Structures are given as structure tokens and as C-alpha cells.
């Protein structure tokens, strides 16, 4: 199937103007393929026919005869499907947030974690592990709650502190983000040091993963991530304007300060929800936007939706690899797969690639 898709897609991909359409079609097909692959694979073998039957019967409501055990159905419907969909949503969110932060800060090294979200979330999670409090709201524990608040809180503090600096807004944001991030990282190190038996839990969070996915968690996080991502996509024009520099953006009629604050808030919301669900998974938010830009150019109207698509695909594949390799951390897979792929693309990139 994929060969046929490639044959159809190749001429379209060769034509630079039609390339985005080809990429979108190829991406949509790939997304479907990885969805099925992701649901079919796992530590317990469920026959491919049964997997398909369960999906058709339970999701599409088709009258497929039941040839499988209830346990197989639970595994496919309640464990694997929410897991794959969560990976998709988180991958989508991190890629969109990556595009947003790179454009906003006009910095190719920016990623969703650059303004302190990662350290804030990690510190929040670590504190939750140390606190002898157990709560469970919508299947989310204190860890997820504090990680979410920590991520948002860190960005808020960075934003407020950066406003009082005399430096240019972008430089100030980046440097403040770095400083606050370092401070929070020190707090995290201290929390890990005193956590005793909780260290494993903190470590597991730092490495990230989707093994704890459930429908309820997905239903809570997905509206946040997807909603904020759509709001970002709607503001693609403002993001394009900001990419050209503040003065040009202002000439184009973009309210620079307002748009920057809104995009920063939305990007942070997406990131915070993603890290609360899945822990800290690196590289997707950094690499996917660059890959897409190398393919279709810097227009945010194209880069945002295509990054969302490829972020989702990459994350499901990474999670699949992580599962097949015996539940290794997803973050390791995203880096191992993403880095060489990115290097190849950089080698083949035309001169003059810019954000």
C-alpha cells in the first residue's frame, strides 16, 4: 500500500507548489497505518484479524462476529487504543508548540520546553512524589496536576520577569527562561536528592511514556491540546508576521505584544497539558517543525498543520518502537530516531534555509 502511495505522491512531491498537498495526503495515510500498527502491537499477541474485528465492531459498530476473548477486547480497546491516540495528541501538541516557540522567539534552537516548561513540570512532579498526599481526579494524580501547574507557572514567571528587563523582548525572554529554568532544575535536583524511594517515580516521569494512558485521561487532555493547537493554527498569520521581525510585523498590522503574549500562552498550555499526560519527551517539538520547514518552506499556515500531522505520526512510531523494545523510555526513541533523520535532512537542505 505504501509503495502505491509513494508512486502517486512522488510527482506531487517533486512539484514544490503541490508538495504540501502531497505531504498532507501521504501523512494522513501514514497516520492511519501507524494507528493500526500501534493498536496491533503489544506484549500480548492478539491476532491481526481479531484486532481489526475488535476495532470495526467497537469503534465503527459493524456487526463483526466475536471470535476473541473479552481480555483481548479490553487490551485493544481500553489499553492500546487510548495509548496510541494519546501518543498522537501529544506528538501533535509538541510539534505545534515547537513551531510556535521557534517562530515566536525567532530561534531555531527553541522547543516547547525552552521557556522553563520542562523544569517547571519536572519540579512539580517531583514535589508531588515527595508530598505524602494522594488524590485522584479524572484518573489524574497529584503528579500530573502539579506538573501541569509547574509548567504553566514557570512560563508565567519567565514572561513577567522578562518584561522588566531593558533588553530586547526576545533576548530577554530567552535569557530569563534560561535563568528560571536553571533555578527550577536546581530545585528538581534537590527534590530528587531527598526523595528517597520516590526517586524511581520521578525518574520515570522525566523519561516520559504513554504506558499509563486511559480513555478518561485522553478525554481530559485532548480538548486542551487540540483546542489550543487550533487556536494557534488560526493565528498563523500573526506567527508569520512575528517571523519577519517586530517592526515588519507591526507594519503588517500585527499587534506584536498582544500576539506574542497570546501565542506564548497557547503554546505553553499545549506543552503543559502534553507533559502532564506523558512526561518529558524531547526532540519531537524541536525536530518536526524543522523537517517540515525544510520540505515546504517557512509559511506557518503550512508548517503548523503539517507539523501537527508529522508530530503525531512520529510519536506513535516512537511509542511503538519503545513498546517493541521492551518498554524503554519514549524520549530515548524520539532522540535516537529523530537526530540522524534530522542530520540527513540538514545535509540535503538547500542553502539559505531560515526560520
Amino acid at each position, binding site marked *: 500500500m505504501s509503495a502505491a502511495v509513494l508512486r502517486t505522491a512522488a510527482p506531487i512531491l517533486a512539484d514544490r507548489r503541490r508538495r504540501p498537498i502531497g505531504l498532507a495526503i501521504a501523512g494522513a495515510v501514514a497516520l492511519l497505518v501507524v494507528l493500526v500498527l500501534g493498536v496491533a502491537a503489544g506484549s500480548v499477541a492478539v491476532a491481526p484479524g481479531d484486532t481489526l474485528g475488535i476495532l470495526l465492531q467497537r469503534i465503527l459498530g459493524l456487526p463483526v462476529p466475536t471470535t476473541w476473548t473479552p481480555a483481548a477486547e479490553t*487490551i485493544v480497546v*481500553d489499553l492500546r487504543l487510548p495509548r496510541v491516540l494519546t501518543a498522537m495528541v501529544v506528538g501533535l501538541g509538541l510539534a505545534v508548540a515547537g513551531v510556535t516557540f521557534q517562530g515566536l522567539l525567532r530561534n531555531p534552537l527553541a522547543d516547547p520546553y525552552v521557556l522553563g516548561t520542562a523544569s517547571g513540570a519536572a519540579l512539580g512532579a517531583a514535589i508531588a512524589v515527595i508530598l505524602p498526599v*494522594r488524590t485522584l481526579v479524572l484518573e489524574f*494524580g497529584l503528579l500530573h496536576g502539579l506538573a501541569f501547574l509547574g509548567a504553566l507557572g514557570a512560563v508565567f514567571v519567565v514572561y513577567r520577569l522578562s518584561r522588566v528587563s531593558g533588553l530586547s523582548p526576545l533576548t530577554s525572554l530567552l535569557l530569563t527562561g534560561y535563568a528560571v529554568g536553571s533555578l527550577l532544575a536546581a530545585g528538581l535536583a534537590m527534590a530528587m536528592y531527598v526523595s*528517597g524511594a*520516590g526517586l524511581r*517515580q520521578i525518574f520515570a516521569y522525566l523519561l516520559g511514556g504513554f*504506558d499509563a494512558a486511559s480513555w478518561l485521561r485522553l478525554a481530559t487532555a485532548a480538548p486542551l491540546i487540540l483546542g489550543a493547537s487550533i487556536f494557534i493554527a488560526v493565528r498563523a498569520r500573526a506567527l508569520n508576521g512575528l517571523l519577519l521581525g517586530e517592526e515588519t510585523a507591526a507594519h503588517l498590522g500585527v499587534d506584536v505584544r498582544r500576539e506574542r503574549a497570546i501565542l506564548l500562552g497557547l503554546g505553553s498550555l499545549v506543552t503543559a497539558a502534553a507533559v502532564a499526560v506523558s512526561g518529558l519527551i524531547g526532540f519531537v517539538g524541536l525536530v518536526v517543525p524543522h523537517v517540515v520547514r525544510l520540505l515546504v518552506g517557512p509559511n506557518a499556515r503550512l508548517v503548523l498543520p503539517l507539523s501537527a500531522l508529522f508530530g503525531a505520526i512520529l510519536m506513535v512510531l516512537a511509542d511503538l518502537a519503545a513498546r517493541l523494545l521492551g*518498554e524503554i523510555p519514549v524520549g530515548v526513541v524520539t532522540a535516537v530516531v529523530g537526530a540522524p533523520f534530522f542530520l540527513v535532512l540538514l545535509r540535503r537542505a538547500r542553502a539559505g534555509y531560515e526560520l
Partner: protein
Amino acid sequence: MRHPSNLRAWLLPVIFLIAACGTSGGTFANVPTGTPAPSASPTATVAATPGPVTLTDDEGTTVVIAEEPQKIVSLTPAATETLFAIGAGDRVVAKVQDITPYPPEADDLPVVATFDGTDVEKIVALEADLVIAGGLGFTKPDVVTQLRGLDIPVVVVYASDLDTALADIELIGQAAWAADEAATLTADMRADLDELAALTTDLPKPRVFYEIDTFNAIYTTPDDFVAAELLRLAGSEPITTDASYVISLEKLVAADPEIILLGDTASGATAELVAARPGWDGMTAVVNGDIFPVDDVVITRPGPRLVDGLRALITAIHPDVVLPAR
């Protein structure tokens, strides 16, 4: 219930009440509901179905076990030992990885969890109807949430001291619908521990350092941990630390142990290596050569073999004491 037993159906509620009056603390808020408490009439001819067991686990979660569990998954090594010790071993279908496995009957059980994580898919595929999980993050809290979300009863246990270790055995017993066997086991254990402790009450109490590990820091037992309690019962004054399990070399030197017990021989510790460590050579135990290996599993694992742990400690600390036959 697959094998209804009339006698047991009548006995269970009674045993629960006995257990509830036990000395081991407040985890037993569980009188089975649904069955009226029977009078002691042995004339039952109709198979009375005992009601669902409702219990409170060590995290304070109320767990309802509606039917006698037939497919139990044990996610802590101590729970595996306990389930086999109370005669529920034939109903255990999977276990956590155990690098010092016990009992041998559990050797062939499929492993569904390791130090790194738990395979929820496999637990579901085994159609587990009871999971005993470890608290304090030993089993990832997310896993517990996930299993409970799939309507699999999960009982979370974590024992810090001797009382909670015994209470956990009784709790696991109730969860596995083998409360009477568990109560018998803990009563025997209490009697054995008391008998052994009595042997050392009048003996001098040497300062003992129990070494859990020395990988990048010196680890020993916290003051309220089960190993510290056993060391006291064994007639010694343990050198302990706080909940971090870490003790500084300075504090250890200042405490000057008279006996050093090596619970980490599995990771290569020997008396010679200890004596050669910089800074350790002045300790009384090192000067006198009183450094002995002990079996750390029976001393630190809060399971049914804690009596063996106490015996091992007494033998190491007071070698002249004659232990009663087992």
C-alpha cells in the same frame, strides 16, 4: 466461587472478626457485608455464599473483592511469599520479578513486572481478578489507577515496620479470601518472634551496623524500618538513619559499630573489603574482625520469613545463644 466449602463459608466472617480484634493496628475495617453474622451453629447444609470482602488497603483505598479470587497477580516479592505461605499459591497466576525467588513453587509463574515497570496488558490477558501491588511507588501509581479503571481489584501494601508487615500479611489474606490461614500464620509468627526476642533480653546489646549497600553512599536501615526492629529484638543497639537510608561515614565512625553485618554480600561486599575501606579501619568491629555476612532477604523483606531473619540476626550477633528448633 469455584469450590464452595460450607465450613469455610461459615467460618470466614468469624475469622474476620477475630482478625479485626488483632493487635496489629487499624487496617481491618472489614466485616464482610451481605451475609448476616451467623451464630455458631454448625448445622449449615445449604451452601451459603459469603458476601463480598470490603477492605481498606495501606493507602486508605477501599477495595471490594466480590468473589473468591482465582487469578491473583502478586506485584511484590513479599506478597508472593505471603500468598504461598497462606495456601493461596495455587491461585497465583503471575508475579513480579524476584532476584532471590521464594518459594520454589513460585519459580514457574510468569513474570509480569520488573524493577522498570508492570505489563498491564499481560495482567489483563491473564484475566486477573486480584492484584497485590506495592506502595510508595514500588508499583507505579499509574499502573494501579489503570488496573482499577479496568475493574480489577488492586490492594496496595507497604510495610515499614514489623507491625505493618504482619498487618499486610493479614490484609493479603483477607483479599485472597484466606483470612483464617493468614491470621494463623501471623499468630505463629508473633509467638515465634516473642520467643526468640526473649532469648536476648538479658544479654549485652552491642552497637550493630547493618549494611544494606555502599554503592556511591552508605545505606543502612532507617530507625523505624523492619530491619531496625529485628536488630533490637535480636539483642543489639542498631546504628540507624533517617528515611533517606543514607548515613555519612563521619556519623558511622562516630557511632563506632561493635559488629558490622553485611546485607550486601550479593553485590560483592566481604569482611576483607570492608576492613580495607578508607576511614573504616578504626571502628571496633573492624579492629576485632566482627564483620559477618547475613541473608538480607529474610531480614528486609516484610513477608512470612521475618522469623528466619530474626534467627539469622541472633546467630550473627549472639552466636552463643541456642535457638529453639524450628
